[in-house]
Every structure is written in C-alpha cells, then in structure tokens.
C-alpha cells in the first residue's frame, strides 16, 4: 500500500507538496495552542519549546530505538504532554502576562538546555533519518491533522470544553460554579503540549535536520500569530490562520529580501482591520446553511460557540 501512495504523491509537484506538508504541521501546532490560549484563555509564549521537546524526542526515538513512526509519535506526544503538565502545574497558578512571561522564560531555558546537551549534539543540531513507516510522510502528516481536528472539535463541544470556556470567561466565576480550575488548566495545557510535541516530531522528520535555535521565541510567536490571525478559539480559524501563515513566506518569496518586512507589516495591518482575526465572529454553520439557501435553525446553531 505504501508504494501505491508513494507513486500517487509522485504526481504532485514536490514544491507544492512541501508547502502542503508545512501547512499540515502548522495546523497541528496551531490547534494545540488553540486549546491553551483560544479555548482556556491562558496566553502561552513558549509553544515552540514543547515543539522542540517533541522534535528531539521523536528524532532520538528513531535514531536510537528505531521505533515505528506511529508508535514514535504517540510516545513523543506523551513525553511532551508529561513535561507540559509538570511545568504547567506550578506556573498555571499565575495569570495573564505573568504566565505569558513565565512560559517565555521556560522556552528560553529549554532552548539553552538543548544547546548544551550531549545527546542532542549540542549546538550542531541533529540529522534525523527518514521515519520507519510504510506510509509516506505527507500522508502521515495529514492523517495526524485530521485526527487532531476531530479530537479538538470533540473537546470544544464536550463537558470538558465547556469547563475550559468557563475558565476563559471568568476564572473566579468558574471556580464558584464548582469547576476545579487548577486541574482543568493543567489538563488543557497537557492536551495543547501533546499536539505541540506531535507537531514537533512530524517537523523533525520532515525537515530531517533540527537545531535547538530553530525553536526560539520567534517560532512561538509564529504559532501564536496563526491562531490570533484566524480568530481565537475557532477551529476553522486556526486551520485557515495556519494555512495562510505557513504558506505566506512561500508566496512572498518573490519579494526575496523584503519578505520579513512585508510579513511584519501584514501582521500589523491585519490586526488593525480585523482585530478578531480573519474568521473571528463568523459562525460557520450559518454561512454554510446560507450557501445552501436555507435559513439557519436555532437548534442547529446550538452548541456553536460565541467568540469572546
């Protein structure tokens, strides 16, 4: 089966395929941060740190143990989520900007530790062999994307997700309603970092060379921009934000040297004209039904969230 899939992919322009895979990885990372920041309202500026933990764990699992890729990704995710929960437990007591700076600080510490570890080849970076799997990587990435979208949508509409939204709305009120705020925050952090770790694992095997410096502050900001651009707390928003920002550097490539300049300008421009994100405030069920020529029915809209 692997060979058939591989030959199918052979028909796609490799450059286009690369962009498609980049978008997929972006979506996994953005969905993870969306659970933490969009759904629970806890600003994290250290998402790339968990991505790097995932990337190095996954790379080492392939190099040292040669585990099959699917098992590898699962272990990677669990390790990242474990670190996330461990870190999250003390720091999630902080609120707002104090939490943000703490996650940022943690990310810098992780980066420096990886830069000094013998096993991750210090500052030289690590070459990652191809994953041990019969399914080609681009398909693997998109399988993970679909799984992530399904799981996160499920979380959004579950009892657990409603508790997280309550925490986002007002922590004190949520606590008064009997929600165990500390526990839910740590759990949402663990889910977000799980996805970050899996995204990192995919990234490591896709790029096939990883360096701790790739996962700095700017990478965290990249992911945060995706979810803010798309519209906080919205799954379609995260997907579109991740797609736009993962592809943007490629489409701006013709500007070569002006690329980052335009990117920075665009971020400011977007925020001024659509401060709630591209998809913020749009109810997708309604749009879909309108397109079909049907009036949205209240029952169908029920359970769709309102944006903050």
């Amino acid at each position, binding site marked *: 089966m692997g060979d058939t899939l591989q030959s199918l992919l052979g028909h796609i322009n490799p450059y286009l395929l690369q962009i498609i895979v980049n978008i997929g990885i972006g979506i996994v990372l953005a969905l993870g941060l969306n659970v933490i*920041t969009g759904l629970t309202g806890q600003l994290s500026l250290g998402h790339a740190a968990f991505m790097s933990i995932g990337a190095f764990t996954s790379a080492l699992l392939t190099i040292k143990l040669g585990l099959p890729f699917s098992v590898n990704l699962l272990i990677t995710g669990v390790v990242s989520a474990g670190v996330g929960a461990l870190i999250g437990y003390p720091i999630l007591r902080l609120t707002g*900007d104090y939490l943000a700076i703490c996650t940022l600080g943690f990310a810098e510490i992780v980066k420096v530790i990886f830069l000094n570890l013998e096993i991750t080849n210090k500052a030289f970076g690590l070459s990652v062999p191809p994953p041990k799997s019969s399914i080609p990587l681009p398909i693997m990435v998109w399988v993970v994307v679909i799984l992530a979208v399904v799981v996160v949508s499920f979380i959004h509409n579950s009892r657990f997700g409603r508790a997280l939204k309550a925490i986002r709305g007002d922590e004190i009120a949520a606590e008064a309603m009997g929600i165990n705020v500390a526990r839910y925050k740590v759990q949402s952090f663990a889910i977000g970092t799980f996805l970050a770790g899996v995204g990192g694992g995919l990234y490591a095997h896709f790029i096939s060379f990883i360096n701790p410096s790739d996962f700095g502050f700017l990478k965290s900001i990249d992911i945060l921009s995706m979810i803010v651009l798309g519209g906080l707390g919205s799954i379609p928003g995260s997907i579109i934000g991740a797609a736009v920002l993962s592809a943007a550097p490629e489409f701006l490539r013709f500007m070569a040297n002006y690329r980052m300049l335009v990117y920075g300008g665009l971020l400011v421009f977007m925020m001024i004209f659509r401060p709630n994100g591209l998809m913020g405030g749009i109810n997708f069920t309604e749009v879909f039904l309108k397109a079909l020529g049907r009036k949205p029915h209240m029952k169908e809209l029920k359970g769709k969230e309102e944006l903050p």
Partner: protein
Amino acid sequence: MLLQQLINGIALGSTYALIALGYTMVYGIITLINFAHGEIFMAGAFVGLLMVAKFKMNFFLAMLVAMITCMVLGVVIERIAYRPLRKSSRLSALISAIGVSIFLSSLAQMIFGADAKGFPETAFPVQQIHIGEADISTLQLLIIGVSACLMLALEFIVKKTKIGKAMRATSEDYNTAALMGINVNMIISFTFALGSALAAAGGVLVGLLFNAVSFNMGLMAGLKAFAAAVLGGIGSIPGAMLGGLLLGVTEVFGVAAGYSSYRDAIAFAILVFVLMVKPTGLLGKKIQKKV
C-alpha cells in the same frame, strides 16, 4: 574579584534597567507588552553609531540625537500600530506589537546588513582605573553614571512634574483620568516617547559596551529587559530598576562561576523562580480581583 564582578554586573544591569523602564511604563498605562521596545533599543544603537561613525559627532551628542530620533519613532509606532487597537482585545495589540518588531528588525537588516558593526575606537577613549583589586573601565563608569542620571531624571518627571502626575493618574485608572480632564492620548504618546528615549540611550551604551551593533540585538535584550520588568513587578518604576540590576549582577556572577553557555537561561531561571514564590514580582502590588 567579587568587587570586579559586582561592577561588571551593575554596568550590565543598568542597561537592562534602562530598557525595562520603557516596558514597565507602557504596561502601567495601557497594559500592553510592547514587544517592539527591543527594536527601538536596536534603532537607538544604530542611530548613535551612525552619528559617531558617519557624522563624526561627539559621543554624548550622538546619544542625544539617538534619544530624540527614537522618541519620534516610539510615538509614531504607537500612533500607527497600537492606537487603532486600543479598544480591541489585548492579544491583537500584542500581535500588532510583534508585527512592528519583525518589521523594524528586518528593515534594519536591509539597511545596515546582517553583520554586527562596532563603534570606532575614537568614540569613547577607554581607560582602566584601579580600585583595590578591581579594574574599572571609564566605559563602565560612564554607563553607570548615564543610567543613574537618566533614572533620576525620570523619577523627577514622574514624581514632581504636572505631566508626571497625569501619567500616574492615567496608570491608576485610565477612564477616571480621562474624566478628570487629562488628555489621555497625549499622556500615552508622552510615555512612549519617554520609554523610547531611555531605550535608545541603553542601545548606544550597550553598543559601546560590547562594541557590536546588529539588527537582531533587540530580541534577546528586549526579552531580558522584559523579564527584568516582570521580576521587579511590572508597572512599578523602582521595580524595573531593581529587576534590571538584579538580573545583570546574577548573569555576570553566573558567567564568572563557569556557566557561560547557560548565560541566556540564567535570567529566565531567576524570573521563573521568583514568580513561583512571589507571583506579582518583587515590588509589584497585589491586586485583589473583585467579582
């Protein structure tokens, strides 16, 4: 040895403090983490370098020009990128600030190139002064002296002048201040100007201290200064000074103790630790959240 490291630390720390003041003042008034602040610091360093190297200006004059240029830059940034977003969510303003930061650093890279540039040796003649066992360079004295003067000036403006009173009122309560007839927009612009001037001075001093000015110097310095501001209790001016000095001194002692490859992690490790113990920073006020 101890005295030597202490002086090195205070010199480094006072530059952190200069940058941190801008973060803390802006935060105090509009609760925005101004991520472009590090880039203003970088811009200040470049303007200073340009003035000294190209226009053969006196060092102090160059610093003054850098401060004034960055004041304008800070006010313009606030006008374009932050003011339209004042009513929208804080995260949008944060992303906008990050956009400005990326824009400015890539602009600097385009104009000045990717490699670090140094000040000409004639910019400030460095001499060593021996005090006991310690070697203090005149450069370090200059940094400590200039920082101290600027901080005293700031303290004077904030505590003794009318506009300083308006600043304090605005940071206490934005809406009430506006109702009392304070031109809040003007105060915010003034705060940005003040913070940017301090950052520019810091930029010129750091450029001279490490003899390197580069387009990406703003990122790490900005992050560390922000850490210093939070460490001291964000929104508190003495807190930013204390936080900056503390980070500078610990960083230098950490490096001296042989952890130089962990240099950038030291500041953040202290920050995380302090926040664990005292979540509002060292001098931050505890605000009881009302329901």
